[in-house]
């Protein structure tokens, strides 16, 4: 029970930070929010925009969006309510007495729960409308999450499948040339910047002057339409090889060394030594004793690798032009499209934090020893 409480407090404190940052992204300056919604397309023949009614537009939108409301549920003010301050107010005694006022109707409440007029609130799934394209954010990112998460999961699974046998073999023959090769190549891979690797691979494989084996960007051929589901998958594969390779390199650099070190520790334990002394085959020992006992550790590595891959997806998707969440974030930052940025940031962070929590719970179920704390 204490274990659950600890993990929940971590989850909730990170969630609070994430919500505060997501709220601050949209509402960090009150001018931006109102002025971005104004559709000032009143032009005369020459094309000059008509700014004479700009102030009225701003006022209308401020009332609609509720910008003049206070920001949070409570605010600390002085007893003398004044919006603008004159230095002569300081003599008034009421100025020096602090008072906490509570407001139930404020911007934070509206952002979370929504007034039913303009927005339905975050808890019902309304992330607002994009400043650039004026469409709801949920429509913008609906199709794109699938690409990001699918590609990331595929890459991480492949890197686990490749790195587990290699690391186990290196741990078995520790100190041999294979082991040293693994260590030095892991150092090389971890210091390789992922964006440089992507550009180099593009230069090598997608260059018409060099080998022209793989296409450069996008996820599907534009012109042709494939009827079958299988044909669609087969036609997408050449586009996905290079991005998956980039994700895999950045994950494997961390995995190779970590799995090798954990497997090496497991091989020094008594039960493995007994099994080997009994005459068990090495492969059986590896995959029944060592792998089973390493499963919680492997799940921990998975829970680190997945958010790192989501963060790295911004770089890789911007190089290869994959329509995923990373590309959405990049376009949102360029166009200063704060609702989209806040929504994507919120969703990615939520996936990260939920991943950590679920992994901890699964590990607690697999290995109950982690729930017992030995007090120092």
């Amino acid at each position, binding site marked *: 029970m204490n274990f659950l409480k600890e993990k929940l407090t971590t989850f909730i404190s990170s969630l609070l*930070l994430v919500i505060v940052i997501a709220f601050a992204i949209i509402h*960090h300056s009150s001018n931006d929010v109102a002025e971005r919604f104004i559709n000032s397309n009143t032009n005369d023949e020459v094309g000059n925009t008509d700014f004479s009614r700009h102030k009225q537009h701003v006022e209308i939108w401020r009332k609609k969006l509720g910008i003049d409301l206070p920001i949070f549920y409570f605010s600390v003010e002085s007893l003398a309510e004044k919006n603008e301050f004159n230095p002569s107010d300081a003599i008034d005694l009421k100025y020096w007495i602090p008072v906490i006022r509570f407001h139930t109707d404020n911007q934070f409440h509206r952002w979370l729960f929504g007034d039913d007029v303009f927005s339905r609130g975050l808890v019902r799934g309304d992330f607002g409308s994009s400043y650039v394209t004026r469409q709801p954010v949920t429509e913008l990112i609906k199709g794109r999450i699938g690409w990001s998460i699918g590609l990331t999961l595929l890459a991480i699974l492949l890197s686990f499948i490749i790195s587990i046998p290699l690391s186990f073999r290196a741990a078995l023959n520790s100190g041999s040339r294979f082991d040293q090769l693994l260590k030095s190549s892991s150092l090389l891979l971890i*210091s390789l910047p992922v964006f*440089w690797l992507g550009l180099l691979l593009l230069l090598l494989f997608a260059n018409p002057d060099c080998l022209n084996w793989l296409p450069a960007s996008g996820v599907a051929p534009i012109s042709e339409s494939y009827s079958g589901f299988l044909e669609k998958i087969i036609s997408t594969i050449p586009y996905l090889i290079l991005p998956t390779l980039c994700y895999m390199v950045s994950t494997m650099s961390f995995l190779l060394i970590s799995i090798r070190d954990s497997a090496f520790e497991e091989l020094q334990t008594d039960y493995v030594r007994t099994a080997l002394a009994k005459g068990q085959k090495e492969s059986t020992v590896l995959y029944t004793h060592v792998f089973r006992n390493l499963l919680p550790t492997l799940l921990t590595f998975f829970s680190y690798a997945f958010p790192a891959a989501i*963060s790295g997806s911004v770089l890789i998707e*911007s190089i290869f032009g994959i329509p995923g969440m990373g590309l959405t974030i*990049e376009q949102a*930052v360029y166009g200063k499209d704060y609702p989209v*940025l806040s929504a994507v940031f919120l969703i990615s962070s939520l996936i*990260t934090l939920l991943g950590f929590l679920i992994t901890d719970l699964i590990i607690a179920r697999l290995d109950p020893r982690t729930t017992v704390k030995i007090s120092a």
Partner: protein
Amino acid sequence: MQSTINSRLTAFLRNQKSKRILWCYIIAGIFAPFIAGNKPLLFINKGGIHFPAFSSSAYVELQPEEKPVLVNSVDWRSMNATLCILPPVCYSPNELDPHNANFASPFGTQWQQLTNGELAPLTWRHRHWLGTTRTGQDVLSILIHGCRTSLLIGFGAVGLAALIALLFGLFAGYYGNEKLHYRRTNLLLGIIIFTLSIFYSIQLSNAFQLSSTSQWLLFAFIISFLILLARKMLSIFSRSSTSKVKLAAFPADKLLTAITAGFISLPRLLILLSLAALWETSITGLLLIIGLTSWAEAARVIRTEMLRMRSLPFMQHAQQSGASDIKIILHHALPNLSATIRVLFLTGIATAILSEAGLTFLGIGLPFDTPSWGALLFEAKRNLQAWWLVLFPGLVIFTLTRVLFTLSKK
């Protein structure tokens, strides 16, 4: 025995090679304007001896009778001089070379304009050895000046992160949950007075029309100090400490660990992107953002080490001999943590440099007139025919990161 000596020798030499490469980077960063620039190091003409590269004034008088000349914008190569020694790479990073613009390759012919207006091939001395960008900036000089930017951001961000991580880790590890005892009334009073002092400092700064954050903080500091002083003086009149006083423990460990845990599981690149999108970024801005998001893992490691060290004999002897807490932390514990701190420092610098290059590569980090390695890769992304914009900056980043990771292994 033989293999142990051999492996230790190779490890030591590998460290030595890495240290030499790191010093090359640091020297390139410090002396960048004297290695790559278009102001000559030595300029002798009939008017006398001048050192334009070292001068801090904007004007220099070349001839005693003529008017002074603007150091930055005059074309030193076309001046008549007895002796003019330019730096080894004779282009500065912001200098646009219109005759070699639009991506001159390092292997092709490069052009210059002679004094009579016609184009001729460039001599070996003034050649762009690693090619140019779209506007004609020399890649080699951007690489050298970019050392300075990256190392500044790396050291600055990690310095800030190390300060915060040390603060959190050392205090959380040393004090634990039970150690800080105060009188219950004093603890409650302290918390209330601290929050009140923030309010009064804001009101005071409004009253005196002060608007910057640092002046608010100064006021909060002064007011809390004064109030604590008043409380100390008042406590003389309260009950003496020999009678029964209720003590409460301030749970420093729980509080600091909760704050650290909140920051650890945040996705770093996404937060950096969001923060960089809100405020326009400069070197100091990027430094602050990277430093403020990367201290959490280091704080957790330092706290674990401190917890392990707290039960060691020398620490307990120091406590029993009556050393003050600060002295134990700074004088006894911190030097023993130096190995861990060195590892965290070096890996932190590598991660900070990679983050800065990644952000500038996306177009979000530094403004494009600051020379940076990520800016070259950003240009390369759009124009993949310029392979020299991909290979050389990436090689530089890769070598620096590999050197830092090699030096950080135990």
